């Protein structure tokens, strides 16, 4: 029983980070129907920004965590904006395939460019200790323990998610975003500035991924290489599909299911843990392609 609960806790921790990344995928897909392959690399850049900025922030502000995460979110948000403007906007009215290929190209470019020695370099970086990790044993005889890092991960993620829900549901621009993802041509006829809305979606999604990157660095303490985004990105994407791509609460739900499944699967057999993501993906696509919370949208002629 103790092990079961512990794995559950492990899963929630992982799921929180996946959620932040998945939200970006789902928002962009909802608005422009594009799988932004490069999203995982925005997450990576966020993590590296933590590495580079933390010492600076510590000197200026004293405490490092909050300024670092805000700075990282600003930078990744900007990166998302630039990415959309340079690489995706020219292709907005061309075939979706070209956009997909371009997204792939941007992803590969970012990864390898950042791997250049004069950028981030291909080797391990130790992520600065933004908080000192402490083990907090849970009283009771189940042998459970959580750490303050876990509380941080879940806390920050949930906070940002709440912020996002408010943004999407209660602000004007949020309403515009929902309108554009529902029906783009009509939305533009209603006077909504499509460019602004799309850029906003990219910026917000990217900022969330950046925050995820900081949490990732804090949790694992190490940045293996500029290719570190690929795998979490893949799982986060599958999580978004699981929840219903384009659906924001779906992405969060999918991410936690993904994290928890992964923890349990790995505890049975590590290969199973590795393959569980694929298994979930195949499962969704065979049984319910629109995802758990998604709607089936018939193709109109």
């Amino acid at each position: 029983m103790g092990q079961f609960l512990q794995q559950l806790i492990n899963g929630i921790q992982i799921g929180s980070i996946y959620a932040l990344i998945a939200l970006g995928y789902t928002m962009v897909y909802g608005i422009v129907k594009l799988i932004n392959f490069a999203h995982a690399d925005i997450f990576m850049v966020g993590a590296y920004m933590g590495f580079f900025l933390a010492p600076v922030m510590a000197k200026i502000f004293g405490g490092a965590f909050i300024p670092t995460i805000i700075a990282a979110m600003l930078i990744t948000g900007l990166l998302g904006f630039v990415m959309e403007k340079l690489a995706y906007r020219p292709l907005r009215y061309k075939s979706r395939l070209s956009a997909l290929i371009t997204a792939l190209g941007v992803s590969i470019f970012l990864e390898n460019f950042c791997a250049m020695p004069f950028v981030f370099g291909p080797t391990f970086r130790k992520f600065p200790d933004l908080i000192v990790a402490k083990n907090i044993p849970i009283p009771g005889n189940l042998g459970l323990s959580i750490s303050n890092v876990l509380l941080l991960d879940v806390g920050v993620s949930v906070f940002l998610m709440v912020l996002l829900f408010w943004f999407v549901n209660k602000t004007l621009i949020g309403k515009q975003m929902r309108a554009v993802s529902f029906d783009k041509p009509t939305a533009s006829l209603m006077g909504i500035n499509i460019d602004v809305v799309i850029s906003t979606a990219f910026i917000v999604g990217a900022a969330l991924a950046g925050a995820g990157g900081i949490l990732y660095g804090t949790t694992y303490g190490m940045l293996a290489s500029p290719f570190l985004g690929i795998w979490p990105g893949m799982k986060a994407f599958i999580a978004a599909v699981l929840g219903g791509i384009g659906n924001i609460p779906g992405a969060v739900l999918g991410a936690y299911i993904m994290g928890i499944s992964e923890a349990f699967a790995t505890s049975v057999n590590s290969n199973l843990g590795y393959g569980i993501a694929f298994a979930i993906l195949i499962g969704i696509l065979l049984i319910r392609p629109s995802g758990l919370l998604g709607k089936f949208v018939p193709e109109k002629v």
Partner: protein
Amino acid sequence: MRRLLAIILVCTLIAGVGVGCKKAEVKPTDQVVNLGAISCMTGGSATFGTSNKNGATMAVEEFNTAGGAMVGGVKTTINFINEDDAGSPEVGASAAHKLIDNDKVIGIIGAVMSKVSLAVAPIAQAAGVPEISGTSTNEKVTLVGDYIFRACFIDSFQGTVMANYAYNTLKVKTAACLFDNGNDYPKGLAESFKAGFEKLGGKVVASEAFTDEDKTVDFKAQLTKIKAAKPEFLYLPGYYGSTALILKQAREMGLNCPAGGGDGWDSPDLVKIGGAAVEGSVFSNHFSKDDPSPKVQAFVTAYTTKYGAAPDAFAALAYDAAGLFLDAFKTAGSIKGSDIRDAIKNTTFSGIAGAYKFDANRNPIKSAVILQITNGQQTYLTTVNP
């Protein structure tokens, strides 16, 4: 028109490729021959590749400064050519072809990773070019043929070394392993550790794996299981990056038993990333830079001065591999592959990472050292002989 352009383009490419090859010029009074190396200069193990290149370069420079070798009455020095294999067997094979066919090297130092060496070895063997890998520990590498040697001990030896140390010196009776089962090297080490430990009477109470080192950062699921089995010793035969993470997460979970590993731990980044979590842990290695012998210290000083960082085991092994090769070359006094190969086979070269004597499978019979992390530094504990 487009077709014509395309044809011209293709022809130019082929011509360009053909023109790109140059023939080495032979001078009458003294000559330069090429020695090649294949190192993973890019990719996830780039630091190992750099060490390989640096160690070998140093050996070549020392050789040249000492006057080179006499081949048929002609003074011969070495031009060192290092090629990148990007950690990929395919690129490594291509590099091997370039070195052998284009640069006409008399030998190859490399590759670093076993999986690349396995692709390079058949090419070297077929061409009759001796190859010495400083660091490829997979048994199959030297089995490819009689031109293939290695300067390090093989996986099965290392695991047993740690098993003996854990059981006999640390006096632990139960152990757990956590390793990457999608990678040859940790898998081999884990298997030999288990065999050795159980032969002595110990019990491996938990053996967990993860797949693909590069992609795994979260080990809590496996560590939760291991913790429940209450082992007295944790064997982590992987590379320094994942080891540091595992130990950090283990300590965060309250798993505090002693830990040990293999030569993959050899990097300053182990302490940088792992911090206090790796303190007190032990690992087996090929050499210790704290070895007080004057030869080792001279090497360490020279390397640190030249490259601005202390040498790791990869650099030391590459230095020895190249040194061994050049020594054999000098003894053979010939640039013919078969002569050099025979000289290598019978060598009694004494390097900085041990004395080299090859067995029937062209593996050196060498001892291992056990190092411990004390106060963030590697300290030498003991030497284990085969």
